Each structure stands twice: as C-alpha cells, then as structure tokens.
C-alpha cells in the first residue's frame, strides 16, 4: 500500500501550483469565438472587434465614429472622385519593427480580392477598379486598381466615385497583412507567435474557446497614446452567463445584454448600462416568389400597416429601440431616410387602411389569411413574433403559425425561398452609408431572400453608384428607398440599439452608431472615485 509516488504525481497533475500573477488588464466579452484572425477571411462582429485592435487600415475611427487618419496620415482625392492618393505615415511600423509600406497595402488588397483567399467579405472592395472581375475569377489579382508609386505613396483607382470609400477603409478586408509571414506560414500566419500586425496591439495568446490575449504593440506609431497594456477577449455566447461574469467582476465590458433581465439591469446597474442607436434594421421579409405574397402588394401593405411599432418598442423590446418605417435606419450623416406615407398617420387610420386593403386582397374574418412566420430560435425573436402575430390577429383576424428554426436551417430555408412565407431578418450596416442597406434589395444581392426584383430600383442604385455629387447621390438613393418602401418587399420594424455594460473603472467609452470601440481609446480611471 505504500506507493505514494503515483498518487502524488496524479495530484500534481490535477492541481498544478500555478501562481496567478495579477495584471491590470481589460476584459471584454466578445460573443462567439472568432473563426480566424486573418483579416481578409474573417467575418462577423466578434472578429472585427479584435482585428480593429490588432491591425490598422489607412483610415480609422475616432471614439465618436468620425473618420480620422490611420496608417495613412493624409490623402488626396482627384476631381473625378475616382483616384485616391494616400500617404503612408513615416512612423508606421509592424509589430516586429519593420516599416509599413505602400507595397504592403498593394499586396494585401490584392490578396483580399483573390478568389484563392476565399474571403467572405471581399465584396466590400467592389468599388475598386476591376475588383469585381477579380473576385469572379475573370481577371488576375494584379489587375486590381491599386499601385504603389513609392514606399510611402499608395494610389487606388475606383471604378466610379464612391463617396463612402474612406469609410470602407476601416473594414478588416482592407487591413494590411505582413507578407513574409503569410508567404512563410500560409493560412497559419494568424496564430500566436506568427502573427505580425500593425495596430495598437499585438497577439500574445489565443486559446480557442477560452480567450484571445492582446498586448501593447511598442512599435505602433501612436503607442504613446495607448493606455491599457493588456486586453483579453472572452468568447461568451450566452448573455446571461456574460452578465454573471460581469457582476463577478471578471468582465469589464459586455458584448450583449440578456433581454429578459433588462429591467433588473436598468434598475440595479443603470449607471453602467450603455444603450445607443445602432446602425441596424430589424425587419420581416416576404417571400415574393410564392403565394400568398407574390404579386400581392395590398396584402403586404395591410400587414405592414397593422403592426403597431410603438407598442412593439415600448412594451416588447423595451430597450430604447426606435420604431422604424423607413428601410435605412437613422444615424447616417446627411441622409434623411425616405418614409412611407403612413409613417405619420395615427394608428387608428393605419388600421382602417389595413382592413380595407386586406379585404381588397380577398381576405376577411371568415376567410382569414393563414401564414407561417419563421424566425431563428431566440427568446428575443420569439417575443417579437408573438406580439406581431397577436397584432395581426386582433386587427385583421390573420392566423399566424410561428416556426422557429436553428440558425443554419433557417438561413438555408430563407435562401431557397421554397418553404418561407414571412421571415425575420436583420441587417447591421457594414459602413456608414445608406448603400449598405439599400444594396440588400438589389435583385442580385446575396441577402435578397425576399426575391425582390424591380429593374427601376436596380437602375437607381446603379446610377447612384456612378454619381459623384454627394447630394445628388443621396437623392437617388432616397428615391430608390421610397420605391422599395412602396413595393413593400419587407416590413421594417425597428432600428437596433447597441447595448453594453461598461464597468465604471473603464473610461473613454463613447457611444457611436457603428458600435466600434477601439481598446486603444479606453483607459482605466484612477482608483477611488473621481
């Protein structure tokens, strides 16, 4: 019986004496685990959050969302609006100390549109000359309208004036990657120890499903302004779990808020709650390729009219969302979204009109419409769907069958347009321009799960894409938006809000409509109350 050694070894294995060193680090909740830290292949909000800290594009955003110089310290746009000349900062450095050059950007942008890279977001670069043909494999990547005039000067040619182009340059598909390591390590260049980046932070650790740890990049051109040395990103899908960890002091900034606990949070943690308008549209789409909604504008309009959006945002979502009648949400500078005529009617008039149209479409209380409403499984979507089904039932007698589906099943059904009749959808703008919303309804767009197809709409968008004058362009876009609203392929319901809990010790947090928050702009307040 006296053989303690194996036992001791076992115990040592099970309970290692790991002395945890307390370090002052920022802990951010980050939703789902990221797929990759390769900026050209990444997609989704969680990856974007980390990539913004790791890399720096030509242009970045100030805390309030305004565009400011990033790796490029100045740029010039010629009169045609299609040629951009960027000057790369002399002090721009990779995290290993190498200089960031114009060639790095040429290499990276070509890699981003190269079909071999398999970028899921390459479409962002479509405004660049030849980009679309390269993505489609019709031209080689070297034909991209990007060239380095010298080490510091980068010239980008666009196929048409694109007033929001600078905004696109904050997107991760435009970030530079470090060529020697990409060529040396291939797809694995984005792992700890191999990843060289040019942002305010560099990658220190990445344990899948546990955390990503970033540390200050001493070579960053503006390193002196970085105040937090270490940043952790924790993948936590479940918002109630995240809330518990926030309350236990393990997370400084949450990525989300559990809806069912919102009242409690507002009451107990109200001063730490940051709710702000978010550039996103929550809507229901009609399948326009099948009955009952195919060629049935009256019915579609009746259903849209019968939704009481004020009750929806006040009683159901109740986090400060804005009722939405337009397709493009508020918050884009200089753009006033188009609204349908009924946006400013009293609800009683809307109901009256809804009943009239419903009857004209051939339905009545004795012959009601029976319809399936599909949404992806989530407590929040369910609440909204139940409320809207009740509104339709009460106002028109519509019978709604609620169908919830797991995310990937739901997406497939939506895309196939066979089973779907009415479905939930949402879109968060990729950049701060109405086009990011309007293009979704273009007949060839990948998110047009309604099957909306109006040549006039497409033509208006194409004209807007060629228009150099910003005001005229917005007018065209607004005309397109009004047209889509009149055709009613969708029911816009409300504009999203971003919701975070931010620990009072964290300073520098500024709300903005794209909900982008660079860790380099945050800081810890001095201990003790100010």
């Amino acid at each position, binding site marked *: 019986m006296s053989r303690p050694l194996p036992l001791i070894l076992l115990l040592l294995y099970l309970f290692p004496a790991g002395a945890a060193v307390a370090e002052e680090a920022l802990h951010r909740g980050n939703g789902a685990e990221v797929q990759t830290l390769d900026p050209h292949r990444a997609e989704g909000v969680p990856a974007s959050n980390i990539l913004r800290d790791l890399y720096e594009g030509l242009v970045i955003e100030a805390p309030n969302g305004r565009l400011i110089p990033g790796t490029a310290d100045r740029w010039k746009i010629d009169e045609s609006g299609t040629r951009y000349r960027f000057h790369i900062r002399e002090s721009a450095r990779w995290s290993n100390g190498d200089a960031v050059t114009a060639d790095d950007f040429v290499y990276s942008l070509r890699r981003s549109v190269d*079909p071999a890279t398999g970028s899921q977001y390459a479409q962002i670069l479509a405004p660049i000359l030849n980009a679309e043909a390269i993505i489609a494999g019709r031209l080689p990547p070297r034909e991209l309208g990007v060239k380095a005039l010298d080490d510091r000067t980068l010239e980008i040619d666009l196929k048409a004036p694109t007033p929001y182009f600078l905004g696109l340059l904050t997107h991760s598909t435009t970030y530079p990657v470090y060529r020697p390591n990409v060529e040396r390590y291939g797809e694995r260049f984005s792992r700890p120890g191999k990843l060289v980046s040019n942002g305010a932070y560099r990658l220190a650790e990445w344990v899948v*499903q*546990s955390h990503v740890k970033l540390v200050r990049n001493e070579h960053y051109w503006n390193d002196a302004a970085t105040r937090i040395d270490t940043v952790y990103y924790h993948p*936590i899908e479940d918002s109630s779990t995240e809330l*518990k960890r926030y309350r236990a002091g393990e997370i400084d900034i949450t990525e989300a808020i559990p809806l069912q606990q919102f009242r409690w949070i507002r009451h107990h943690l109200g001063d730490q709650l940051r709710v702000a308008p978010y550039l996103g549209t929550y809507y229901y789409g009609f399948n326009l390729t099948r009955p009952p909604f195919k060629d049935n504008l009256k019915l579609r309009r009746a259903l849209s009219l019968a939704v009481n959006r004020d009750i929806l945002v006040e009683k159901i979502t109740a986090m400060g969302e804005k009722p939405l009648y337009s397709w493009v949400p508020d918050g884009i500078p200089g753009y006033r979204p188009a609204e349908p005529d009924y946006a400013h009617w009293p609800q009683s008039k809307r109901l009256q009109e809804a009943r009239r149209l419903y009857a004209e479409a051939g339905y009545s209380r004795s012959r009601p419409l029976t319809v399936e409403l599909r949404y992806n499984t989530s407590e929040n979507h369910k609440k909204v769907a139940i409320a809207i089904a009740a509104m339709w039932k009460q106002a028109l007698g519509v019978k709604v069958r609620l169908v919830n589906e797991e995310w990937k099943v739901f997406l497939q059904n939506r895309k196939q347009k066979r089973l779907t009749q009415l479905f939930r959808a949402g879109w968060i703008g990729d950049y701060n321009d109405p086009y990011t919303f309007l293009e979704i309804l273009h007949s060839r767009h990948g998110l047009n799960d309604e099957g909306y197809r109006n040549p006039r709409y497409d033509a208006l968008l194409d004209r807007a894409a060629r228009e150099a004058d910003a005001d005229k362009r917005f007018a065209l876009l607004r005309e397109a938006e009004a047209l889509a609203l009149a055709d009613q392929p969708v029911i816009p319901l409300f504009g999203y809000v971003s919701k975070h809990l931010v620990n009072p010790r964290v300073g520098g947090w500024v709300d903005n409509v794209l909900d982008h928050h660079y860790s380099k702009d945050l800081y810890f307040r001095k201990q003790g109350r100010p």
Partner: protein
Amino acid sequence: MLRYSLKRLLGAIPTLLVLLTLAFFMMRLAPGGPFDGEKSLPPEIQANLDRKYHLDEPLWRQYGRYLWDLLHGDFGPSFQYRDYSVNELIASGFPVSLRLGSISILLALLVGLALGTLAALRQNRPADHRIMALAMTGISIPNFVLAPLLILLFAVHLGWLPAGGWEGGRGRNLVLPVVTLALPQIAYIARLMRGSMIEVLRGDAIRTARAKGLPERTVILRHALKPALLPVVSFLGPATAAVITGSVVVEQIFGIPGLGRHFVQGALNRDYTLVMGVVLFYGALVVLLNFIVDLLYAALDPRVRYR
C-alpha cells in the same frame, strides 16, 4: 487475459466504424453548410471554398477521403476555426476535459463511497435518512440548473470563486465546474454503495470475521469494502460517460475550453470535421473506459475470469 484484451479491442473497431458512419451522414443531413452565412457568398468564392474542403465531391468520396485520412491519424482541418486542424483542437481541448472529468470522478468516488458506507452503517437511522435525502436531491437537479445557482451564490453574491473561465486550470476556476459535475455522481455512488454495503454486511464472510473477534474497523475496511465496491466499479463506466456528456453542458456554462465546448459549437457551426473528430474521440474513450472497468472488475472479484 491477453487474448481477451485483444478480442475486446478488436471488437471495438466495428462499433467505432458504425458510429463514424452514422455521425458522418447525419451531420451532412443537417440543413446548412459550414460556409453558409446570412449573406450568400459570390458563387466563385463559394466554389473555391467547396473545392478547397472537397465539399464539391460526391458524398461517398468525401466519406472515403475522410476514412483514408483517419487511417493516417488525420482528423482534417476545422471548417470553422480556419487557422487550426481538428487534431490540434482535440489536443488542446482534451487535457482540459480530462482534468475536469478526472477530478470530478475522483471527488465523486471519495465522497460517494464515504457517504454510502456511513449510511449503510447507520441504516435506517437519522444520518442514513439525511444522506439519502441529499442523494435524491443531487440526482434530481440537472446540471444546467445547478451551475447557474452555484455561480450566483459563490461568484456573484459571495465573490469567493470566479463565475467562469479556465485560466490554465487554476484551482479557483475548477471548484464550481467540478462540484457541478460530481454532485449527481456522488449521489448515485452513495446510493449504490449503501445498498451493496448493507448486503455484504449481512453475508457469512462478515459474520465469520466478526465472530473471530476482529475490530469493527478492520471488518469494514479489510473485509467488507472490497466486495461492496463491485457494483460501484461497474457503475464507473456509465459514470464516466455521464461526466463526459455532462461536461458538454458544464463547459458551455463555465466557458471552459474543453472538448465539450468544441462539440457544441462545432455542431452549431456545421463544422463537420470537428464534430466527427470529437464524436469519434468520445466514442473511443467510452469503449476504452468500459474495457478498463471490466479489467478492474476481474482484479477485484476473484470469481470473475476472462477468457
């Protein structure tokens, strides 16, 4: 003995093959693919991705390819975590799950056996009733209820322990997940041990031992414990399986980067290779553990011999 072991291990191969085949085709039957996002991809890029991961080939060829790679010990690349291979993900996740699971089983055994023995010795007295009531509670509370309750009490209100995270497996981070995993097993083991101990204590061997005038301590520890352990040992197989499946939930709740979390996220993301890899790994593990349990059984019970 050796022949028996070989036979058992060879017998596991068809089991695993069936498991693999079922998992492979069921996974492909689920609607949606690994690269489906909200926005459909441009067809060229979709085609590129499909070609790269051989998703453009007929299913039977993909299956053959998978088997072939597997024979070479390669679980393939992860579809979701593009920078990692499934082998790497399993290699990083398994030690975490192993540590979590083995501590839980160890704790369950220590506490469960002690409680069960105690209850048996105090049969039908208040201590026995209290222990068995506790055991019933332990069995009936599911871990997805228990875990949040423990977190609320010990992490949020008392602030003694972290609410989640792993941090390389620090003791502080282990306590709550281990307790959550172990509690139902403690309950089962205590009940089993009590029943079997009561039976053994009534047997002739124990009567003889007592008649020889041995002290009660010796009677229990030397003569009653070993035979009483048998049903518990045979329960270890299912218990380990329960801890493994339980850890799928527990790892998710506590944010522990183990195999269970890879499994759940892999299924949701349609990460075919990752799910397949974890399923096979779990399958092999359960087969192996059952085999070990059988060997243990033979070691403990002189009446059992394998041929």
